[in-house]
């Protein structure tokens, strides 16, 4: 997984934004390129990831689940990172970059609130202002995270347009960025958006895959992660792209852009997109709010097309039992998003898709505390 050429991964990616945002995107690109080549920036980020975010996160052999399934399951524990998910990796990188660019404020979109909480956290740590855009529907569904963000000093702005969910929160964050590009950085939460975001966010997340590769004794046969926009998967895959490991991305059935979408342009990039026959973007529906997005990062679209990664779909019905099974066999309450990856392993183990005796690395992208109300409702 290399740097995109002219902002593109094969036919995907690009910078489809209004003219007013072009200079801002170009400024983020050059600032990131320069910072990423600067050992001082890298070491400051590494230091924060260690002393603040709790990296490296553990690699946990899931012994009892492995015995039940007949495959060796290794869990990369992003649920143990500060704020409870991998989102902090990207946000600390972008917040440091924002400071380096002389910005005083972070803008972010959030669906479930995990990226919003991570952004509010990094802003508090580094003395930046944070404004988080969140759909009205999600604000109601995720009251706990809204409260967390406000406690951390962030302003949470309800988005009332369109479907009032993540898709519209992202549109609104981009609209508002236009009005304050001089002092604000748009801290996008996944491997999507206009160039350089898909590349930059993947680089900030590759710490997941790089660590896991060092922690695994030998290359696993399979490397599995859930995919919404696809940042935890992109970060995980980045550590194994040059190995013989089979890379598997697991989409939510109601947000499966690769399985059920076709190429389109939304939020600044070209990729697979859920849309109707006329090109109007469809609303995604998943029990896991973090996978509730109609698109997918452009690099995933490319990895799919060239056959380097496989993308598969898991339904809501498979997800809840997977949460329970991991909890009872390993004592780990994972997020509903992460449970998609676990559910695929459970389904595929012992079949041709994941033969008995294989070693499979699964990224647990986050912890499940945020999902307790949903799980209580499903019980």
């Amino acid at each position: 997984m290399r740097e995109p050429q002219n902002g593109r991964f094969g036919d995907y990616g690009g910078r489809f934004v209004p003219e007013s945002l072009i200079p801002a995107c170009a400024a983020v690109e050059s600032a990131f390129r320069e910072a990423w080549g600067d050992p001082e920036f890298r070491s400051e980020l590494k230091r924060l990831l260690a002393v603040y975010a709790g990296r490296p996160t553990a690699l946990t052999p899931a012994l009892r689940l492995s015995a039940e399934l007949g495959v060796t399951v290794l869990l990369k524990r992003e649920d143990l990172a500060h704020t409870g998910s991998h989102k902090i990796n990207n946000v600390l990188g972008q917040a440091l970059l924002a400071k380096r660019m002389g910005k005083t404020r972070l803008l972010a979109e959030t669906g479930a609130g995990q990226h919003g909480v991570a952004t509010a956290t990094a802003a508090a740590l580094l003395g930046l202002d944070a404004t988080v855009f969140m759909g009205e529907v999600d604000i109601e569904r995720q009251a706990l995270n809204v409260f967390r963000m406000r406690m951390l000093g962030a302003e949470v702005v309800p988005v009332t347009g369109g479907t009032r969910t993540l898709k519209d929160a992202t549109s609104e964050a981009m609209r508002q960025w236009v009005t304050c590009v001089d002092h604000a950085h748009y801290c996008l939460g996944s491997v999507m958006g206009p160039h350089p975001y898909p590349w930059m966010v993947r680089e900030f997340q590759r710490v997941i895959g790089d660590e896991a590769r060092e922690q695994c004794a030998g290359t696993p046969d399979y490397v599995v992660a859930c995919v919404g926009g696809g940042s935890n998967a992109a970060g995980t895959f980045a550590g194994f792209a040059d190995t013989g490991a089979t890379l598997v991305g697991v989409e939510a059935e109601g947000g499966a852009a690769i399985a059920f979408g076709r190429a389109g342009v939304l939020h600044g990039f070209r990729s697979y997109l859920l849309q109707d026959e006329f090109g109007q973007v469809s609303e995604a529906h998943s029990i896991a709010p973090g996978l509730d997005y109609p698109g997918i990062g452009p690099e995933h679209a490319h990895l799919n097309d060239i056959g380097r990664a496989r993308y598969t779909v898991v339904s809501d019905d498979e997800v809840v039992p997977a949460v329970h099974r991991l909890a009872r066999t390993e004592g780990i309450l994972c997020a509903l998003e992460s449970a998609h990856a676990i559910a695929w392993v459970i389904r595929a183990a012992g079949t041709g898709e994941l033969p008995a005796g294989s070693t499979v690395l699964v990224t647990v992208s986050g912890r499940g505390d945020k999902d307790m109300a949903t799980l209580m409702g499903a019980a």
Partner: protein
Amino acid sequence: MTLSVGDNVNVEEHLRRRRDEGRPLLVPYLTGGISADWTRYLTEYARAGADAIEIGLPFSDPILDGPVIQEASDRALRRGVTVRDLLAEVAAVDVGVPLIAMTYYNLVAQSPDFCRGLAAAGITGLIVPDLPVDEAAPLVAAAEAAGVALTLLAAPSTPADRLAEIARVSRGFVYTVSVMGTTGTEFAESGGRIAASVRALTDRPVLLAFGISTTGHAVTAAGHADGVVIGAALMRRILDGGTPEQLGDVLASFRRALDDSVMTREQGSRVPADRS
């Protein structure tokens, strides 16, 4: 009656001619499909003195539009309108001034024949706000082949070298955004600076857009550019129940204010209100 491409009005020739007559250009916007009788607004706009009309083809995720045009797009989409239906309705009316489609790239990219479809409906201009000049090459070619003027946007943040490229590639006119914001943002006279920069680079018409909600704004803006685009201010009235006739009256007041401003300027300076 469906016009053939050969009969279509060339946006740039038309706007240049009117500008060169000393007329400040007035281009109102309408969200296509906003009501069952939406094409009547086109007729009234033309009657009230529009020099061209921008028709928004509604998209689910209008990234450059503020709350008013978002609401208008949502309302039109809830009516179940499709690009195909809207084009068929446009083809059935003869408004007498050039029609310019404004929509987002995902709708345009649905079909390699998108521009031909516009031309077949008598629409001879296209504005795609999420398609910057760097990404525009494929559409530039398709638009040209179909006889559709692809108009590019310039923004206050656009650096000089990009501005030159935009002025070179844009057809019809250059759509200059007055403020760093979305449609319907408050008008800023600073937009005049960007319009002046664009006019120094090209003799294509330069229109100033975004936030022009009063006749005073329009007169100020037209002092810096060849004319104005008025969108959210009209759509707000339509969302609030304004009829085609009422909107025609509103637009006529903009027309009068712009024309009066030329006379005032001529009398004041005793030089023709041309571009010199």
